Structures are given as C-alpha cells and as structure tokens.
C-alpha cells in the first residue's frame, strides 16, 4: 500500500529552497576570503530584508514598481490578445506582424530600454518595456489557441446556423483560454524582469529598480541582495494571484 505524506509537495519545495540557500551560504563563505567586496550571507540578507519591511519608503517603492509592471503587463496582454487574434484569423495580418514580433523577440531588452528612453518619459518607460515584452508572448499564445480550435466544431456550428459572435464566445474563446492563461503566467515573469531592468537603467523616482541601482552605487550589497529577493517574492506573488484567480479549466 502506498503511504501518502500530507504536504508532500510543500515539503519538497521547501527542501529545494533550503538546498539552494545552503549552496549560497557555502559559496559566500568560500568566495569572501579572497574578495574586497563580499557576497552577503543569506542570514545578513534576511536581516536587511526584514529591516526594509519596516520602512514606509520601501513599501512605497514596492507599490510604484507593482503599478509600473501591472500597467505594462495588462496593456501588453490586451494588445497581444488583439494582435494574436487578428494574426490567427488572417494570413495577411500574420505576415504583416511577423517581422515586428521577430524584432521585439530578438532585440536585447537593454537596447530597447535605451532606445525608448529617448522618446518616453522616465516614469512611463518601465510600463512600456514590460508591455513590449509581454506582447509577443501573449500574441503567440492567442495565435496558437486559435490554431487549436477544432475545425469539426466550427463546421458543425456553421451548418447549425450559429452566429459568428456565438461561435467566437462558445467555441473559439474556450479553446484560446488555456493558451492565453499560460501566456499570461509566462508573460508576467518577463514583465517583472524587463520592467525592473528598465527601472534600474532609467531610475524613475521611488521605485524598486531605482533602490536597487542606488544600493549598487553605494556598494551596499546586502541591500542589493535584499531588494532582489523582494523582486523574486513579488513576481511569485503576482504569478500565484493569476493562478488563483484564473484556474486551469477541468473538463
């Protein structure tokens, strides 16, 4: 008989995290002997992190970055859904959008940040960059969702006189949704990475990225690690919020 442990998955995840923290600790201890600027130990980072948590300015920076990235993510998801839908429905639009999407996917994010900084105000730049990174991911997800629509179902709908609108809502949209959900979850990770990178480079006032950048300039590596940890937590938190709100459909 198979023995089932309660919280088996959670235990495995915790063990995995502890393993990597242990490795970090070992690396920090061994590397620090030869370096002028030490790698902060996990415990030191945790102390800085909790100190930050008591600071109102830190939470304000967290709020500003969440706003930047959420705004960018949402606009990227909406634009990507629309362009993906048109691309999946029309060959002309697919050929037209293909070079632009290829460009967005292949140009390094740092190059985009520097280019966009010439025209876009600093406070809007992180949102713009997040939007730009999310757009192709969601576009491809929606396009693939449309390709996955069962032609036998649309054929049946056609013969049985179902309107185009009802065919979209009852046949196409349910087929697109699982792809869109995965696209949004992946896109959110990219939105965080690129949005914070834009904040680090262009330093919009009172953001997490600006805090990260100033900590680096002040050679405060404890703070750099603590802020990075915060970014990871926030990214995971928002990803789980999406997963909680938008559950995988069970058929």
């Amino acid at each position, binding site marked *: 008989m198979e023995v089932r442990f309660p919280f088996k998955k959670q235990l495995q995840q915790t063990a995995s995290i502890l393993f990597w923290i242990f490795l970090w600790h070992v690396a920090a201890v061994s590397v620090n002997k030869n370096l002028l600027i030490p790698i902060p130990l996990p415990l030191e980072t945790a102390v800085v992190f909790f100190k930050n948590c008591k600071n109102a300015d830190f939470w304000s920076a967290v709020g500003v970055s969440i706003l930047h990235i959420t705004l960018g993510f949402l606009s990227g998801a909406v634009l990507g859904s629309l362009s993906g839908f048109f691309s999946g429905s029309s060959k002309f639009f697919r050929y037209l959008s293909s070079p632009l999407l290829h460009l967005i996917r292949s140009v390094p994010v740092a190059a985009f940040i520097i280019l966009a900084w010439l025209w876009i105000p600093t406070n809007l730049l992180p949102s713009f960059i997040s939007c730009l990174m999310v757009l192709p991911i969601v576009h491809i997800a929606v396009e693939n969702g449309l390709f996955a629509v069962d*032609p*036998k*179902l649309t*054929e*049946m709908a*056609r*013969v*049985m*006189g*179902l309107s185009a609108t*009802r065919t979209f809502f*009852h*046949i196409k949209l*349910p*087929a697109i949704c699982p792809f869109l959900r995965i696209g949004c979850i992946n896109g959110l990770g990219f939105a965080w990475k690129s949005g914070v990178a834009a904040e680090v480079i262009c330093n919009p006032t009172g953001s997490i990225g600006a805090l990260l950048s100033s900590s680096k300039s002040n050679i405060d590596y404890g703070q750099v690690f603590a802020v990075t940890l915060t970014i990871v937590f926030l990214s995971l938190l928002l990803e789980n919020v999406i997963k909680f709100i938008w559950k995988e*459909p069970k*058929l």
Partner: protein
Amino acid sequence: MIELKNVSFSYGTVSCGKTQPAEKTRPLSDPAAHEILHGLTLKIESGSRICLFGPSGIGKSTLLRLMMGLETPSSGSITGIQKLKKAVVFQEDRLLPFATVLKNLTLFGSSLAAHTHLKALGLAGQENAFPSSLSGGMKRRVAIARALTRNGDILFLDEPFTGLDVPCRKKTADYILSQSAGKTIILVSHDKTEAALLQSKIINVASLNT
C-alpha cells in the same frame, strides 16, 4: 424540392489533414485527383425521408457534405437547400467539450426543447454533466438531442445510431420520427435496418453516379 444536377466531386491532395477539392490543387484530368462522385442527379421532395445507402468509401458522406454546403461541387449544381434551416448529426458527436450537456443544446434552440429531448432520450439528470463524463452511447444521444433542439427544416443524419444498442436504436429512431413530422430527413448509412427504423426510402449512391 432539393435538386442535384450532374454533380461531380473530386478530392485532390491532402494537406495538413484537410482534403481539398481537386480543381483547387490539380486539374481533373490528373489521374492523381480522386473522383468520388460523377454526374450525380437526384431530386428530393420536401418532407420526404431518404437514406443514402452504399458501402464505405462510395461517397455517401461527401454527398451529405455537398448538400450541407460544406463542400463545393467540382461541376453541376445543388438547388433548393441554401435557405433551409439545417440540423445535423455528424458521424462523430462533435459536442463542445467545455460546455455542459444542456449548454451544448441550448446554443441551438430553446431550453424547454432541450430539456424535453434530453428526457425523451433517457438523458434526464445529465444536463449539467460535461461530455467527457458521458459514455459513447450517451454522447451520441446528446448529439441527436442537439439536432432536434435546433428544430430545422431538414435533418441530416450521418450514421446516427453508431454506438447505440438495438433497443436504444429503435427507441431513438421512433423519437426522431415523432419530432420530424413534415420535415425532410436525409440519412446516410451502410445498414439497411437503420433506413427501416427511420422509414426512409433507400437510394443506392453507386447507382446515382453516371
């Protein structure tokens, strides 16, 4: 009256799982273009019941697809069917996997009709079930109930009783007949007993090809 005049149809190459009429892919003189129907002529009176009969591969389902407007004839014409309200039971159930049984029906007709047909076909209590939880026979009956809910002028039935046992076939056929008074029924089958169950006139598709 539905009239098919000198209808021919050929399948060409197969690309990405979709067959294409031959004239779009290669000339009909090309020996590789596979002609299914040739110079077929048929008249179907409104309100009649016919069974397109013949062995597998003879072109029964293709003929049905032509009449439903899902394929275009390579030559010839089909008239008197375009404006009719069509209902269909395909060879496969073609149920929406992400919708409940009831939703699968109410998309095409009234909720009252849907409940009535489900009850009559022994599916009462399955309204909120998803197709994946149903047996093959139940899915088949849902597909039939959906076509009846549509309440069309013409009912296309492509091997509608596949997966149903003999008593169930009889009961289902009787119910289809009771709900289709005055409507045209076009059945496709390779089984004469199915034609008898639906009291339909047997037309051998092979004999229609000139």
